[in-house]
């Protein structure tokens, strides 16, 4: 036995623990901590390592998401999101932090990793409520599960895939409190994307 408590796995009792949660996406249905916004065909998968999957509409830029309904307990400067997710179908699957429930664009605060079917590499998104911008990571786009880590710092956001740092980006970094989010966003043609997620953990440092 290494620890008397889960608390002490991460934090000594002399330190007041900050917001921290983890989600296994295991069970009969999606845990009630999540709000499903415009989700299509959301369900816990009946498959090995399947987690939870959901899609979105097929209209141009149709977007769906699971989120905390704007209970934004995570800091734009000291928060980490770790997500094990993959995309199938066309369009985007995006995971990380967002201050809105289902908006990807200039007007949100965002720090997230996107997997766009037609791109060459996964991308790291920042948005500061006025402007959204992105940069490429080193991981090629595919349809495999990856461990995707977004670390919001005071001057930049770090984006890692499978424990390899792929991008550090300070431009348009978020400036407002945020919530965890996983999104599926239709691009402009073809089938809707499906997001598959089997783990998400977020914490303030």
């Amino acid at each position, binding site marked *: 036995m290494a620890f008397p408590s889960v608390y002490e796995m991460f934090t000594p*009792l002399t330190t007041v623990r900050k917001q921290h949660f983890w989600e296994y996406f295991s069970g009969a249905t999606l845990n009630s*901590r*999540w709000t499903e916004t415009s989700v299509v065909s959301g369900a816990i998968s009946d498959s090995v390592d399947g987690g939870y999957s959901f899609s979105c509409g097929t209209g141009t830029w149709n977007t769906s998401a699971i989120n*905390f*309904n704007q209970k934004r*307990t995570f800091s734009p400067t000291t928060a980490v999101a770790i997500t094990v997710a993959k995309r199938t179908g066309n369009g985007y699957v995006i995971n990380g932090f967002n201050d809105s429930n289902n908006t990807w664009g200039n007007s949100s605060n965002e720090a997230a990793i996107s997997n766009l079917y037609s791109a060459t590499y996964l991308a790291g998104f920042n948005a500061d409520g006025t402007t959204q911008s992105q940069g490429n990571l080193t991981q090629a786009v595919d349809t495999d599960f990856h461990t995707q880590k977004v670390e919001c710092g005071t001057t930049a956001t770090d984006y890692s895939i499978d424990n390899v740092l792929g991008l550090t980006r300070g431009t348009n970094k978020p400036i407002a409190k945020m919530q965890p989010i996983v999104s599926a966003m239709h691009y402009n043609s073809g089938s809707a994307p499906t997001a598959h997620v089997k783990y998400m953990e977020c914490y303030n440092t």
Partner: protein
Amino acid sequence: MTNSIYDQLNASGTVAKQRVVETFSGDALDTDRWSLDVDDGSGNVVAMTDEVDGGVRITTSGSGYDRVVVAFNNKRQYAHTGAELIGVRKVTSSTGNHVNHIGFVDTLGNGFVSGRHFVSAEFHSGVTNYSLQSGDGSAISRISSGVARDTNWHVFKVRTTNPTTGLSVDGALEVTKTSNPPATNMQPAFEELANDGVAYQGQVRYVEAYNT
């Protein structure tokens, strides 16, 4: 590296005892797990906060005597002979006339009071320091932690081994007592109680309870 949480928390060959970990993260309080017990109040609000590191917040109604307990609906799986609870809590006002508890209690209805079996980390606006308080079903008593009450977040650890109960605040040296220990099984609970018709708030962002 071990492959399981089980092995991190339990010695080899040991059968795990009851444990719960609640991180109070999400769009709403998990009412599959937590129940509300409200006394003499309408208009209380128990809701997740939209605040960095905010967890869940109890806000009393601001009308007369008012008490809200968040607990396990009398599902009492924790032993008075060996249980611990770690809670991260704050109150948003250290003055006025209100009380906040986090710990174990046997039965809902009137909260952490005389007549109940309980052990808690008590905030009391009329008491200088955070206190270890316990009840044995007939009488209650408290001992000071030595840590002054305030409006900051703190980590509280309460334990009961019968007859000894203990409290540490932010990992500091534990205070203990043997008077009025709880003598029956209990449930995790936290409470905000307003005595003077003012809306008070108590927030919790972590609870872990386990039998030892």
